[in-house]
């Protein structure tokens, strides 16, 4: 019995030392909640997480503390037999009710936050206004009721995201949106199930082929937000990252124009090239080639081509 106890003691001591060494480093670096939110719905999610995490930590700690206390206090000793522990009347019902009350409270809270997070918020004053940019400049209240949020069609495919803007312009890999503007994402997939997720801008939602799904966000600050597809989608899954660039409204509009012009230019260039080729070789291959050409020409905004392509 001596040797194993010694080993266990040494192991515990080593672990304690390790923990002591790691603790200061860890305390400053370890996140206690998901990334800081930059959208109202992401804030809701963070609130939900923080509140429920406290309940969970209390429950988990309580059980472990009770366990340790029991082990320390009630070791078998010579001459001390087990005591008969009796609960009061209906102790089971009381504990059950307590647990039920906690569950109910968490449920109600979760329900409220769920509804809250799903609720579209109107665009802010600095955001893109549906009617026109003038209303905001004139200092008028934006028309709430008939205001249309910016709606972007998000289409997942192995292994990139394609974003189509209301005017038909599109981009790959990177979603560019104006700040303080409610953006509704209509999610769709052309192949397998993908999961759109940018932690700072809200939760994750599936892009399933043949089924429409929706989420929204309203970025409160300009900048670049990184995310990552969160549903396993095949060999190049880690390369399927999501990137949202939030610009000011004028920058956004300029970008949109530029992007449209780029696409137009690229398309005409390719068209010309293809026609030239056709004239030269007299080979009919336009039918199959066009969609693929479109994909290639979106690269200017996209950066590196995805791994699997």
């Amino acid at each position: 019995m001596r040797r194993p106890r010694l080993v266990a003691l040494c192991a515990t001591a080593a672990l304690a030392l390790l923990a002591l060494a790691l603790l200061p480093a860890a305390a400053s670096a370890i996140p206690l909640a998901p990334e800081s939110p930059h959208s109202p719905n992401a804030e809701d999610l963070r609130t939900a997480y923080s509140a429920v995490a406290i309940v969970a930590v209390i429950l988990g700690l309580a059980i472990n503390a009770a366990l340790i206390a029991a082990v320390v206090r009630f070791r078998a000793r010579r001459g001390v037999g087990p005591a008969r522990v009796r609960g009061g009347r209906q102790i089971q019902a009381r504990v059950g009710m307590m647990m039920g009350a906690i569950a109910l409270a968490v449920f109600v809270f979760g329900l409220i936050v769920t509804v809250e997070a799903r609720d579209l918020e109107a665009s802010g004053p600095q955001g893109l206004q549906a009617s026109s940019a003038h209303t905001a400049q004139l200092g008028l209240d934006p028309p709430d009721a008939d205001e249309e949020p910016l709606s972007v069609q998000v289409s997942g495919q192995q292994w990139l995201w394609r974003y189509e803007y209301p005017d038909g312009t599109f981009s790959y890999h990177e979603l560019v949106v104006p700040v303080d503007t409610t953006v509704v994402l209509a999610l769709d997939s052309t192949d397998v199930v993908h999961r759109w997720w940018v932690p700072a801008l809200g939760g994750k939602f599936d892009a399933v082929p043949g089924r429409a799904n929706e989420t929204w966000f309203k970025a409160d600050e300009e900048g670049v937000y990184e995310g990552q597809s969160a549903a396993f989608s095949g060999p190049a899954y880690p390369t399927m990252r999501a990137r949202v660039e939030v610009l000011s409204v004028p920058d956004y509009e300029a970008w949109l124009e530029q992007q449209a012009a780029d696409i137009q230019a690229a398309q005409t260039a390719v068209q010309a090239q293809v026609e030239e080729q056709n004239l030269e070789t007299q080979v009919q291959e336009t039918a199959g080639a066009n969609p693929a050409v479109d994909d290639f020409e979106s690269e200017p905004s996209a950066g590196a081509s995805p791994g699997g392509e």
Partner: protein
Amino acid sequence: MTPPPTVAPARPEVVTEGLPRRRPAWIETATSADHKTVGLMYVATALSFLVLALVELVLMRLQLIVPESTLIDPIVFDELLSAYGATAVVLFGIPLGLGLMSYIVPLQIGARSVAFPRLGALSFWLYLAGGILLYASFLYHPPDAGVNPLSPLSDEIFSPNGGMDAWIGGVGLALMGFVLMAVNLVATLHNHRAPGMVWRRMPPFAWSALVSSYVLIFTSAVMLAALAMLLIDRNYNGVFFDADEGGSPILWQHLSWLFFSGAYVVMLLPGFGAISEILPVFSRKPAFAHRAISRSFVAIGVLGVLAWMQNMYSAPIPLGWTIVAMAIALALLVPVGLLFFNWIATLWGGALEMRAPLLFALGAISTTAIGLAGELTQSVIPVAWQIANTTAATTDTHYALIGGSVFGGFAALYYWFPKLTGRVMGEGLARISFWTLLAGVHLTFGPLFFAGLEGQPVDLYKYYEGSGLDGYNLVASLGSLVLAAGVITTLINAAYSANRGVRAGHDPWGGHTLEWFALSPPPPHNFDAIPDVRGTEPLREIREAVRQRTESWRAPAPLERPAAATAPAAATEEAPTASGATEAGAADPPDTGEAPPDGGGGSVA
């Protein structure tokens, strides 16, 4: 006077025609339909697959030890991932529980056999065939569509190789085996209980077996249907999951998550059952509330399965259904909370003997509590929108399932090993294994929780530099080696002790349930005499009865022989119990064979 010529002179003769010849041991084992042999084969196979799962886990962790590592090919990583999921859940977690149930449950309820012995044997061979089929695919092309191959990805367009078919076949065969075993156990539990063992007196492990079996029958059948659909979709132009043809990929998610929810429950419940057996024995006081524990099992089984949609909060399904799922998932807090409360109340005030089974049971409670508290947060929709499918989510799942299946399974193994083999597992190795395993779990999954909060999704073969995830993954990868060492130590302990361990009597722990009434290991027919059950802890009552009789017994007049009164009945049972038992004298079960005056009739009330 000549004798008739046809009659041969009389000579001694041994008639051997009617007896089968003894075949080599391995044939005897392989062809056996005895629930104990089947159970042993189940447990041994499940533990072998545990080793494979560990190898896969460690390889995946090694790939993730540094960012943008190129140690393992992405495709190979996906293959390891898919194999790991199937192995850990279908080839290790569920069958380990089933094997223990097959062995122990008939003994616990005082049955001489299971209801359908051959069905049990068939069940094992189907399971083994499934495992072999899945791993045979490593010879050509293993499956690579993930732990739960969501529908369009598992379709023949995106997974054209045969690996996916091997996955379907392997998982399908194993599940067929599980359904058969579950049917077998349900029939046994309903029909073969000892006289007097009414439902409320059934031991907690038998209760967990009953609930797990019903859950398996229900969810495995659903999954088998889903697998058949997927097979048809892939190979015969079916349209079940194809959105373009009028099918729905969401259908696969519903069916498969229903199964995985059931699998989750079935991986936890046997461990919970074993813990509920171990705590009263090693704290030397009866379970705080036997009935509350068995009711919790039922509630966990029902609610755990019904909450399958909590895995689909991000899927395009109506919000109302996800809210229903959240309500059911949160309702689980009541039975789970009661269970933990009762366990601690059982320990409280006891005289704890810190032997290996109790140690592992305590580890299981601690680990599972952390995991299930994490799952509680994730059953809240907005939290899951952020946390689901990150490494934080897998952390919760792994804490819960390693708690239930590895710690709980090992606790059960240490506890029942003397019954299985007649020998006790080494205490020293057990302690080393326990502390290593505990450290390994926390080192592996603790950091991954925080990595998940920082946004690391699960199933990635690489993460990028500068994402701030390096430290977590480094510690987790090293931790996985510690975890593996902890598991392997117990397996070595078991392998060594099976032949060389200290001999155990029929009841080395002073157990309260009927399996300790039988020999270690029990004879093929389990019991010579089946005792009458009159409480939730039959063996304790038997001991009590023996003690009272011994104490109240007064020596008759010196002329008479004192043993005459009990001798005839005792003779039949004295032989098996006394032969293997060192402390047979303590319990002396034979007396009880005749102890109850009303032979099983008065117990139904």
